[in-house]
């Protein structure tokens, strides 16, 4: 046992012990003397970084039906937005139709319901898909939703070659932490690769995959594990896609990362620097990439909602700003600031505005854009960057030797158990007061009660969506739907890329649930471990 009184050990969540002082002896000149925009991109993927172009302010939020979302999109475009980010409701995320008994209460809850191509037609009505980029947070049902987008583009006369946007399509993290899986791992990986292959060949300006560290961290992984599992996931998707005959230089630059920034400013900044260096080396040395853009890891970042508290909720405004600062000091590309009411509900408009204002204050008032990689050369941050890099390599090796790889560790439930175990330990530290959280376990005000104005839940959304779905079903040709679904069965049996068939099937207004239902007949469903 260490002497409690003299124990001033500081250990980061990623397990790195921090010394009270760092000096020039802690850094290797070779690691420090990089140039932004130059391999291995530790100091940033662009030579000008925020000085030339600031990060993108991108808030993620859902509305309850496609025509309301369309209104919102149009007003965002009027305000000068060139990208639209779409949140889907839970039934759509797991491939259920709105009239499914199980789905009904959650229709339109956390995002827009998509049952058929008609919903997408309403959603993007009057929006120029050549000019506006379309991001969709969709994972397990990506094939069908992307097929709908392509079908919409074809019907409206937009050129697939000119569509821009991003799909999440990171199904592996669904098994580890986010929970909206449908199929077992093998068919899920096949479908993810179907999207990557199809986009690379037919929709080349679309980003077909966005690898998520955010949810891994929120579930209990630390910064080192986040990067390790992201790299392993990235490699799994790449390997699956290379089997289709693609070349890494054709699609590697379309891979991006959805990451997180927690409360430790320096650990997070160092994490992004380390991750860029590692990804560049892996792309170049392991995959033989030759194009620089393939080696550049791009990060969209959300500030950690789990660091925000229900107690004294206005403290969260300060927390979110500081987490955002850590991300920006790490040289990331786009930012979502979580709202102060996050612990209570889907954000109110006021809370979203404050989150955007937080970003605008950082951008306009703090000098963060004045110089590139302002922490570069800091003894501490450079040493931490190298420490994180080394530990990520160790973690990757541990997963490979202990479990035989990422997919095996997921199907055995091992990674899940490890990170949830860590989350429990952290929770115990918070509750015992060992890990101090202001307003929660210290500086608590007795008798405080915070009444926040919460976003109102629209109880009518499910009923309205089902009425709309019924109308589509009345109007469509049942025969065409049946034929389409038969064609899908043939396509699945052949083992071919499902995307071209799916595009034809969705044009018959077959529902998401009908299509996913056919896929389940062949692929089965994932069983929780």
């Amino acid at each position, binding site marked *: 046992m260490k002497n409690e009184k003299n124990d001033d050990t500081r250990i980061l969540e990623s397990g790195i012990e921090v010394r009270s002082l760092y000096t020039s002896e802690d850094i290797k000149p070779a690691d420090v003397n990089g140039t932004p925009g130059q391999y291995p991109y530790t100091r940033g993927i662009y030579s000008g970084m925020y000085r030339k172009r600031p990060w993108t302010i991108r808030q993620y939020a859902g509305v309850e039906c496609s025509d309301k979302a369309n209104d919102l999109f149009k007003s965002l475009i009027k305000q000068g937005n060139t990208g639209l980010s779409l949140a889907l409701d*839970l039934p759509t995320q797991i491939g259920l139709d709105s009239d499914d008994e199980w789905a009904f209460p959650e229709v339109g809850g956390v995002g827009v319901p998509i049952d058929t191509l008609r919903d997408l037609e309403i959603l993007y009505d009057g929006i120029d898909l050549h000019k506006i980029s379309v991001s969709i947070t969709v994972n397990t049902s990506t094939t069908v939703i992307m097929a709908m987008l392509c079908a919409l583009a074809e019907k409206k006369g937009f050129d697939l070659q000119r569509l821009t946007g991003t799909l999440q399509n990171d199904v592996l993290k669904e098994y580890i932490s986010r929970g909206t899986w449908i199929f077992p791992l093998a068919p899920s990986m096949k479908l993810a690769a179907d999207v990557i292959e199809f986009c690379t060949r037919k929709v080349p300006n679309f980003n077909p995959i966005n690898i998520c560290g955010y949810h891994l961290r929120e579930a209990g992984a630390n910064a080192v594990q986040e990067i390790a599992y992201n790299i392993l996931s990235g490699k799994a998707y790449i390997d699956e896609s290379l089997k289709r005959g693609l070349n890494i230089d054709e699609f590697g630059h379309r891979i991006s990362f959805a990451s997180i920034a927690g409360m430790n400013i320096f650990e997070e900044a160092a994490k992004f620097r380390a991750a860029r260096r590692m990804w560049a080396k892996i792309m170049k040395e392991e995959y033989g990439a030759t194009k620089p853009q393939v080696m550049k890891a791009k990060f969209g970042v959300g500030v950690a909602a789990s660091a925000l508290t229900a107690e004294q909720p206005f403290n969260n405004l300060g927390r979110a700003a500081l987490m955002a600062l850590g991300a920006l000091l790490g040289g990331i590309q786009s930012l979502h600031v979580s709202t102060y009411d996050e612990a209570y509900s889907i954000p109110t408009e006021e809370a979203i505005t404050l989150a955007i204002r937080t970003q605008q204050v950082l951008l306009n008032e703090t000098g963060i854009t004045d110089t590139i990689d302002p922490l570069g050369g800091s003894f501490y941050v450079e040493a931490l960057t190298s420490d994180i890099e080394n530990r990520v390599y160790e973690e990757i090796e541990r997963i490979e030797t202990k479990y035989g790889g990422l997919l095996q560790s997921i199907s055995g439930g091992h990674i899940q158990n490890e990170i949830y175990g860590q989350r429990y330990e952290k929770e115990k530290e918070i*509750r015992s007061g060992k890990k101090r959280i202001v307003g929660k376990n210290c500086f608590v005000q007795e008798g405080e009660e915070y009444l926040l104005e919460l976003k109102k839940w629209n109880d009518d959304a499910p009923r309205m969506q089902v009425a709309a779905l019924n109308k589509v079903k009345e109007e469509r040709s049942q025969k065409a739907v049946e034929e389409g679904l038969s064609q899908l069965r043939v396509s699945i049996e052949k083992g071919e890329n499902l995307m071209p068939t799916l595009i034809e099937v969705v044009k018959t207004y077959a529902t998401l649930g009908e299509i996913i239902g056919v896929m389940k007949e062949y692929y089965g469903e994932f069983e929780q471990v």
Partner: protein
Amino acid sequence: MKKSNPKAKIRILLSKPGLDGHSVGIRVIAQALRDQGFEVVFIGIRQKNQTIINAAVQESVDAIGMSMLSGAHISLMQDFMTRLRKTEFRPLIVIGGVIPTGDHDRLLELGVDAVFNTKDSFEDMADFIRDRVKTNIDEGE
């Protein structure tokens, strides 16, 4: 009348009804209640209400704990309590997650025994469940 056995472990079934997959909360609670001496039956996330009830009957648990973060807690619990009342089974029902204070009374009216939030300590939750389960058994409910 069946008397509570102070040495018997309390059995609680934990799950997440509905479609939301954010499972940190329920998994942390599962560990915490185990450490508090409960026997925890965790049947996984994204379960249908009827599946949860059937599993609870089969396992003859003393209590059911459910976590909801998607905002659908009112309609989910309306349906759950309606289904539960169709059985003879009367376990203690406790819930948690992201549940606004303004909804607590409505949930208690529906027949939920307690709504926990992040301010409640593991010990307080465990004590509440222990006391109420013991009372239920002693009163022969």
